[in-house]
């Protein structure tokens, strides 16, 4: 398996052109405030254009390195950075001719080419950007850590185009490993072929097509028997929100109350997406679904989603957390805890899974939709355990307007201004409620403040 490296990512829409990144770069690299010494350059907005950033992408197949006749440029196999050696450079500028990103350019004031070296993995620009327009993307670290682990599902699962649930379960089961028993109640997870069809299976681990109503208890039975015979087996549920919040809730609640040692993952796509996009107990207010349609008398779902992960905390089971596939590091940290916890008590992970098919958005922007859920506080990322209470793992103090999230998604297309304002209000109220819980936790357990 190949290796991936971290790199800088620039978000055009978030940049207001303040230039703090360039100043920070100049200070870090030349100890001056003169932005001419910066190795990244904001390309100013002209009429009808968006801001761009001239920035070295640290390409995997770098043309600059290929063009360099003197060996001054080389791809560092350990860090992924394109290193530039001043002592070898002959100032021919062939490298600049090859770069499509203006990532390496001749700096007249400096007298030679200059390029970003990622500040040894701690980029100065990222730290000063007030709008998070530059991110140091560490997703590759996850790839490097887990890509070598065996994928527990076969190739060619038939999830919809752009579905991130397949991504989620593949990541999850790589980490959980082969000593596990999976239960997948009716829904998208078995629907994509994980349990299989007509005698063939899509998984390399034992997997059971459980009932919509019984997943947690059935797994508790599996785990009880393996505990009895002294075998360490992770009992894990990959369930949808219907099998968790509605028909499956009694089973989940019973298992949580008993703190049965299982790992229950709710893949929340906000409805019965596999069977035709019907409304569930966690479908948000205003959503179009096939059972909360839009017409003269009805404008989508008329009631709020139940706050299932918070309800789960009320059971005092060992671990509860929310997660998003756009924040995989956050997810992996929680999954790691959950796997450990599930040896002795119940761990519940509520993962938000936007559905391009059922929510009506282009399949290419699923991850961006996930990200916007978090950036607008429509989804809050937190974790809870009975001892330490609730804490945010990715607090968003200056959320973007929920309207910007809603407008990405077809199922909200019909919303009136009043409905959008109502949703914004409930999002604000929910985050306030969560903040109060974090304050309570901090008051009870000062040591747990992060």
């Amino acid at each position, binding site marked *: 398996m190949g290796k991936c490296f971290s790199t800088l990512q620039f978000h055009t829409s978030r940049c207001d052109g303040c230039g703090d990144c360039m100043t920070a770069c100049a200070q870090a690299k030349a100890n001056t405030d003169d932005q001419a010494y910066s190795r990244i350059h904001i390309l100013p907005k002209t009429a009808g254009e968006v801001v761009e950033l001239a920035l070295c992408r640290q390409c995997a197949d770098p043309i600059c390195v290929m063009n360099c006749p003197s060996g001054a440029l080389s791809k560092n196999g350990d860090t992924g950075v394109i290193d530039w050696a001043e002592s070898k450079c002959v100032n021919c500028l062939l490298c600049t001719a090859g770069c499509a990103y203006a990532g390496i350019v001749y700096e007249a004031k400096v007298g030679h080419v200059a390029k970003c070296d990622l500040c040894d993995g701690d980029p100065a620009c990222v730290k000063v950007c007030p709008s998070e327009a530059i991110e140091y993307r560490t997703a590759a670290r996850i790839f490097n850590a887990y890509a070598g682990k065996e994928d527990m599902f076969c190739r060619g699962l038939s999830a919809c185009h752009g579905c991130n649930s397949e991504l989620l379960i593949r990541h999850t089961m790589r980490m959980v490993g082969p000593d596990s028993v999976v239960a997948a109640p009716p829904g998208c997870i078995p629907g994509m072929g994980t349990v299989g069809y007509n005698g063939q299976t899509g998984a390399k681990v*034992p997997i059971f*097509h459980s009932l919509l109503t019984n997943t947690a208890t059935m797994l508790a*039975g*599996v785990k*009880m028997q393996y505990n009895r015979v002294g075998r360490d087996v992770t009992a894990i549920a990959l369930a949808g929100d219907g099998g968790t919040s509605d028909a499956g809730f009694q089973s989940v609640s019973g298992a949580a109350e*008993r703190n049965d040692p299982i790992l229950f993952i709710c893949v929340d796509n906000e409805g019965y997406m596999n069977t035709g996009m019907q409304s569930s107990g966690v479908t948000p207010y205003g959503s179009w679904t096939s059972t909360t349609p839009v017409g003269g008398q009805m404008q989508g779902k008329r009631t709020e989603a139940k706050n299932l992960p918070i309800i789960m905390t009320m059971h005092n089971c060992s671990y509860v957390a929310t997660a998003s596939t756009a924040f995989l590091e956050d997810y992996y940290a929680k999954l790691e805890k959950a796997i450990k916890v599930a040896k002795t008590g119940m761990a519940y992970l509520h993962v938000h899974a936007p559905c391009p098919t059922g929510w009506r958005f282009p399949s290419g922007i699923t991850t961006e939709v996930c990200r916007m859920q978090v950036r607008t506080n429509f989804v809050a990322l937190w974790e809870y355990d009975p001892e330490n209470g609730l804490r945010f793992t990715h607090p968003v103090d200056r959320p973007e307007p929920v309207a910007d999230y809603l407008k990405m998604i077809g199922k909200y297309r019909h919303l009136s201004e009043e409905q959008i304002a109502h949703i914004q209000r409930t999002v604000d109220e929910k985050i306030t409620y969560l903040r109060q819980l974090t304050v309570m936790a901090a008051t009870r357990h000062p040591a747990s403040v992060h």
Partner: protein
Amino acid sequence: MTAVTDTSRSASNKPSFVVCEGNEAAAIGVGLARPDVVAVYPITPQSSLVEHLSQMIADGRLQADLMNVEGEHAVMCGLQGVALAGGRTFTATCGPGLAFMFEPYVRTPGLRLPMVASLVTRDLLTPQCVWGGQQDAMVVREAGWIQMYCETVQEILDSTVMAYKIAEHRDVMLPINVCHDGNYLSFGVTRVEVPDQQDVDEFLGPPNTNWHIALDPLRPMGVDPLTGGAGGAGPRNFVRYRKGQVRGMQNALRVIREVHAAWGERFGRYHAPLVEEYRLDDADYALVTIGSMTGAAKDAIDIARDKGEAVGLIKIKTFRPFPLEAMVAALAKVKRIGVVDRSVSFGWNCGPLYQDTLGAIYHTGRAIPAISFIGGLAGADITVEHFARAIALTREAEWGRISSEPVWLNEND
């Protein structure tokens, strides 16, 4: 209940004796079968059964894990997990609890999980009712579980142990309901003989619940992938699966006979495995009974015999699979039949046992008059007098004079 230990119990492999109710007898039988997990949820008149088991586990007399769950649905689901992981299981329920369990309950035979569960039979709502009756068990007679109905408290204990051997037989691999009548058997107290544990261990052997279908990382497999649909291998696979399940039920008729015979040889108690014929060989006519009512019915038969009546009795022990061959053999001996049900068939205006008996009569190759009696609903007693009436009416049964209505035995009590 007070346990009365027989003073002669000193040598090993000797049975002991206790005086107990039917529910406790079932619990003792379960204990002897050494299940890995017992899942419990209370419901009248079953509750004392799981209370006894819980206490046995609490005392360390039964080395099983106790699963306290939030309802009968969870009971069955949790035990499916245990069985798929290789454990031997037990639970008990009845009436509304069975109705709530229905979704996973109907799946257990298809998974071919050899579970044993007591049905402490109770009449179904509505009217609201907490007393005995067999309507609950009869509602699920086509669910794919084996059903054995007990006549006595001793038979409950013995059948509960035997049920594991039958269910786990490789030619069967199906779940069994050991049914005993709510109130009359569940709370009826008698002296019962308790076999020695070592004898039972040898009789049963180790559990073997998941050799065919398992949730086990050492044998990874997809359990219950989608099967069916039009075209391709789906329908064919489904038919083969169903056919195998039906074959397992038919195999059970042989295995039930073998296991009852082996039990008799080892423990000296020979219970009729499928159908019991009582004073039938020289009978002109007979009653068909099921469950605990049979005791009073036999008394009524004896009284009628004393008066010179040529009447006998056919008792159903195994109702599912239906013991067609044994029933045909018994029915061939008589000219008129009266069938006493403790439940109703809403679709046929008679009792379900009556309906199945008519099916068996067809296989005798000759039609004989048959009357449907319905009694003992909602805890009502079917007395010797009721049976005397049933005997008298059956004796008079003639073609053209049989009512299409059933006779409701307790209607005017």
